[in-house]
């Protein structure tokens, strides 16, 4: 089932009459059977988007399509979706078994088949032995699996997950991440996965949408987004350690760093820009012919097989992650280089990336 959002907008009007645009003109197409990560900082409109897809919130403008059907005005119960809430929303007075059974009781399913489906789904998410317990008797991770089972048991056309892993510890989070991916692959359900954790989104998604203040920033595959960010916000939002960003000038076609000519950008106009360079994209220069820059090392840390160098570029503290063998502890200076396509030049006002071939 393909899922298509067209100019989706949600404006909340609060009591004093001021408007808040929680989702602003969002248009994306989610291909059938893919898992799309909806990523953004807290309060950027992720849950709002999800709730509009679910039908729990009415869009102010725009349309939602499931395949060819326009479901914008359709009530949530008619959409055939599964939703895992940010805090699970398991019915506290029902056992795990009854919680998972609940959606099926509202459908036209024979009893034997329903029982079988509940048991199969419980096995799939690994809570088969806890069917008689109440949600309060489960750990957060187990509750979350029940919530996923409840959403999946009715074989929804679309699965929506709202930060389902936010309450788990790091190890369980990793494990559940893989499990969700596996379940999604096995069932082939079109899935939207909301998270504010960029690493989680990168590892689980086939494609990602990044939102900021309700505005879509970029929609592409994780690695592509990482390597070719559309703007400064996306560049800053992805990656750990975060990208280095600082002001720099292009003068006479040359990018100037610490008053040295670093790299030639013929296509870029002479002006002041924001530059983005990821720590791991720096390399210690080995050839004379390369375009490079000499920097004074301020600090040096060894982190496993990599070495983190701190230095200054245009008055900003910069971090670079380089091969441990390429720099010595005693070195005072080092020649650094970077692939041309990994030097991101952003417009100073709009933050948009400037293509430079």
């Amino acid at each position, binding site marked *: 089932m393909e899922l298509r959002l067209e100019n989706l907008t949600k404006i909340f009007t609060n009591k004093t009459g001021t408007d808040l645009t929680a989702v602003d003109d969002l248009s994306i197409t989610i291909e059938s059977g893919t898992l799309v990560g909806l990523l953004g900082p807290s309060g950027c409109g992720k849950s709002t988007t999800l709730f509009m897809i*679910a*039908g*729990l919130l009415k869009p102010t403008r725009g349309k939602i399509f499931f395949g060819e059907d326009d479901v914008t005005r359709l*009530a*949530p*119960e*008619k959409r055939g*979706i*599964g*939703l895992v*809430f940010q*805090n699970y*929303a398991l*019915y*506290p*007075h*029902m056992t795990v078994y009854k919680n998972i059974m*609940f*959606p099926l*009781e*509202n*459908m036209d399913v024979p009893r034997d088949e329903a029982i079988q489906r509940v048991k199969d789904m419980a096995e799939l998410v690994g809570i088969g032995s806890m069917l008689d317990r109440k949600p309060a008797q489960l750990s957060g991770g187990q509750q979350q699996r029940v919530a996923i089972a*409840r959403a999946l048991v*009715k074989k929804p056309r679309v699965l929506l997950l709202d930060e389902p892993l936010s309450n788990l510890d790091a190890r369980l989070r990793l494990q559940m991440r893989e499990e969700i991916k596996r379940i999604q692959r096995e069932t082939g359900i079109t899935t939207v996965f909301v998270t504010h954790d960029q690493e989680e989104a990168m590892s689980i998604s086939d494609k990602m949408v990044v939102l900021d203040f309700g505005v879509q920033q970029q929609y592409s595959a994780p690695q592509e987004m990482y390597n070719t960010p559309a703007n400064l916000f996306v560049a800053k939002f992805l990656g750990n350690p975060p990208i280095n960003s600082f002001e720099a000038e292009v003068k006479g076609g040359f990018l100037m760093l610490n008053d040295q000519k670093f790299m030639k950008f013929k296509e870029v106009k002479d002006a002041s820009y924001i530059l983005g360079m990821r720590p791991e994209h720096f390399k210690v220069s080995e050839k004379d012919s390369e375009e490079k820059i000499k920097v004074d090392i301020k600090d040096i840390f060894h982190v496993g097989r990599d070495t983190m160098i701190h230095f200054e570029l245009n008055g900003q503290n910069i971090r670079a992650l380089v091969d441990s063998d390429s720099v010595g502890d005693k070195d005072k200076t080092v020649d650094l280089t970077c692939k041309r396509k990994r030097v991101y030049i952003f417009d100073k006002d709009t933050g948009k990336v400037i293509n430079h071939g």
Partner: protein
Amino acid sequence: MASLIKNIKSSFRKMTTSIKTFFWDLRRASNARKKKIGAYLDKKNLNLATKFPGWARALVYLSPALIVLSVFTFWPIINSFRLMLYEGYNMSNNTITGYTIFGNFIKVINDESFLFAASHTEGTAVMNTLIIVFISVPVSIFLSLFISVALNSIKPLKGFFQTIYFLPYVTNTIAIGLVIAYMFKADGGLVNTLFGLGKYSWVEQGAEYWRSMFVLIFYATWGTLAFKIMVFLTSIQGIDKQYYQAAAIDATPRRRIFSRITVPLISPMIFYILVTSVIGSFKIYNQIVALFGVTGRPAGANYTMQSIVMYIYQYIDGGGNNLSIAAAGSLILFGIILVLTLVQMQASKKRVHY
């Protein structure tokens, strides 16, 4: 002018700050004192919390409530036991002719207006009370549940409707009774006019037992609706909205949302209301007096609308030997309520989700 306002504002702020600081320091001092006293008590091994066992401490903490209960509840119960055992009690010179164990009970039970009616009359205190309890309690609970769910689902004028439904609670029972009696008047009453029933007699001369009972139950139900609606509405509003959203996603019909989500989630409140209204209905008195007078007998009727409590009162009024009968009657009422409450508690264990 502006500077004056500014001055006032700043001095006001200073004042509130110093007041807040004063209370802060007060709390600090008291904290320090408590800590000191605690340390002292610990040193002398006098700490209540560790020195005395739990039940002893519980007794100390409960003592104010226990004293009040003893004076106004336990002592009267014991006293009724005492009175119930007397035969031929004379209050004015405080003499008795003898003792009996079941004598007064037997008198009460054989009384034609208490349990089994004589052939030419209808209605007895126990029967009337049971009918009222077993009809008005379930009806009022169901009605108030539905009304609260309905009230909760409307948005405009919510406060207005809530106030309307709450009005009976703050209105005098007797006053409501008069209004109800007026509504059900045979000649020009609202009900007869509205339904075009002519001069149909409800509570006046010529009304049959069940008509009077219908009006009484209507009155008893309606009067208690307000409080129940308020309790249910408050607890429904306390339910997390996400459960309803989840139910909507799962295409749950309204009826099932009500029975499988709303009712179980407020079941502790429903249970509380059930127990208190069963007890309350067993003690029905005001409403009957308001409609049928202190005798509980509509003019010219061959039946009585008396409740158990009215029956008991009637014998308290008599004084003397009758007090023993009143005592026996109250002990029967006490027994019925006790048993019913225990049954409800037992039954609730499975159905109430805390």
